[in-house]
């Protein structure tokens, strides 16, 4: 991302919007400037800030005049008053930053937007996490820290050394030069992204071993790690296997994503139907 020097009026709103804190007002030019090494090309500034398209010269003049009167001209905090943000033409390897950081960009390896994967979300169709298995999503970089691929590689190689299966349909896996060893391709190792998710599947019995490995590695890498653990419920909808293991490791289970198992091989054909009322649907 770049900020047009011609358009920027130095209001500073984009400095707050930047997810990585990579934008600052240069004291010499008094214009917003992007630290491109820290910018992850998430486009939060470009897509999230509203645009006013005010004439830059008029805004600068107004700001100058008002400051002489001890007054300030402040646009709403989520506005770029002069539409000064300009996306860069991204080429390899920098384009990887956007693929992982901008949720509106579908990742070619999964077809899912952003860093996302399907995990247990469609498990009733995909059987991605089978009975007796546990799926780990190991996410790096959130909240507000970011991660470089060489840091992710520390984790992927440590887990691969344990002989675990790294999930193939995952954006991080697509960046590996050797999935067996967890090695990520050399040309992107220093690229920084807002977050990325490493995904593995192991038998339930290995849950504790994996978590202890994650704990050991996350202490060595300068980012934040957040773990998700997905598994199948039993026939009466209870989950009595993995939760006790997690609790024995000291976790208090509060929040979860619950798949209701409503997916079918045939999606309901609705093109020719007229909507039914709530009462009709529920009592049908």
């Amino acid at each position, binding site marked *: 991302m770049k900020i047009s020097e011609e358009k920027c009026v130095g209001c500073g709103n984009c400095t707050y919007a930047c997810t990585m804190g990579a934008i600052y007002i240069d004291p010499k030019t008094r214009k917003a400037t992007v630290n491109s090494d820290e910018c992850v090309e998430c486009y939060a500034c470009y897509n999230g800030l509203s645009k006013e398209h005010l004439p830059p010269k008029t805004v600068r003049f107004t700001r100058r005049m008002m400051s002489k009167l001890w007054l300030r001209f402040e646009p709403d905090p989520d506005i770029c008053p002069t539409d000064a943000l300009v996306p860069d033409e991204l080429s390899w390897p920098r384009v990887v930053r956007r693929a992982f950081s901008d949720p509106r960009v579908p990742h070619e390896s999964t077809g899912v937007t952003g860093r996302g994967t399907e995990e247990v979300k*469609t498990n009733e169709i995909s059987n991605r996490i089978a009975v007796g298995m546990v799926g780990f999503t190991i996410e790096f970089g959130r*909240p507000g820290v970011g991660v470089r691929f060489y840091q992710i590689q520390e984790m992927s190689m440590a887990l691969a050394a344990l002989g675990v299966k790294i999930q193939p349909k995952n954006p991080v896996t697509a960046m590996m030069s050797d999935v067996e060893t967890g090695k990520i391709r050399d040309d992107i190792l220093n690229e920084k992204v807002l977050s990325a998710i490493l995904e593995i599947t192991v038998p339930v019995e290995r849950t504790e071993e994996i978590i202890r490995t994650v704990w050991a590695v996350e202490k060595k890498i300068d980012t934040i790690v957040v773990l998700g653990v997905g598994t199948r419920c039993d026939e009466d909808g209870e989950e009595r296997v993995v939760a006790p293991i997690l609790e024995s490791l000291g976790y208090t289970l509060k929040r979860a994503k*619950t798949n209701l198992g409503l997916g079918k091989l045939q999606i309901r054909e609705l093109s020719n139907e007229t909507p039914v009322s709530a009462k009709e649907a529920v009592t049908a």
Partner: protein
Amino acid sequence: MTNTLHRYGTAESFKDDYVIFALPAKGGAQKGDPKPALKRFLEIALEYNPVNIGDAMNGGATRPTEHTHALEHFAKRPTKPDFQQVIDGAGDPTTFSAVFATREDAEAFVTRIVAEDLGLSINISSSIANALGCCKAAGITRHSVGYSLGFEGIQDNVPNRHVLSLSTMCGHGMISQSLAKKMIDMVKENRLSPDKATASLSRFCSCGIFNPVRAKRIIEEARGKIF
């Protein structure tokens, strides 16, 4: 969709937070056109008082504004969600979501969605107890569960807990901690109303999973320093 899963906060803080989303499986595993079913999902949600709806490609119900001429600078910007623009703009099949702030609305919606039998995968991201309550109300059992183990090394009682609670409500990380902090500070200074602060944050969420009711509550709590 770990973006809906890992929200910072205690279990109690999710009392008004139900993110329910629908998606088709990838890779041609299902037959039929998912687009009408996904759109129906959103239309049904409107009957149960959602506080946000959205699709992962086009955004939620409160979106950034774009002025066409300079005089609009003096006009009021909308702070209320525009649900119809989400439904009208729903495009390619992706993840569609609806957010509810009360147990009654969420449970009634899930009951209805089960009855509609759309054939899409439906997930609830909320506290474990909230999701179990929805399943019980709808008379179904859980198929799979994905636990959030929380942000490693970040406890429930950190000093910037309100900022984290707000910024992690966009799991894609589009809501910066700096902006969340600024919104809290501006409300504390009475330079901004909680509604406007919430709308400003909502506009950065690119898939409509931000919960403005929970956000407003958190901002109010931060103003009064209630933990």
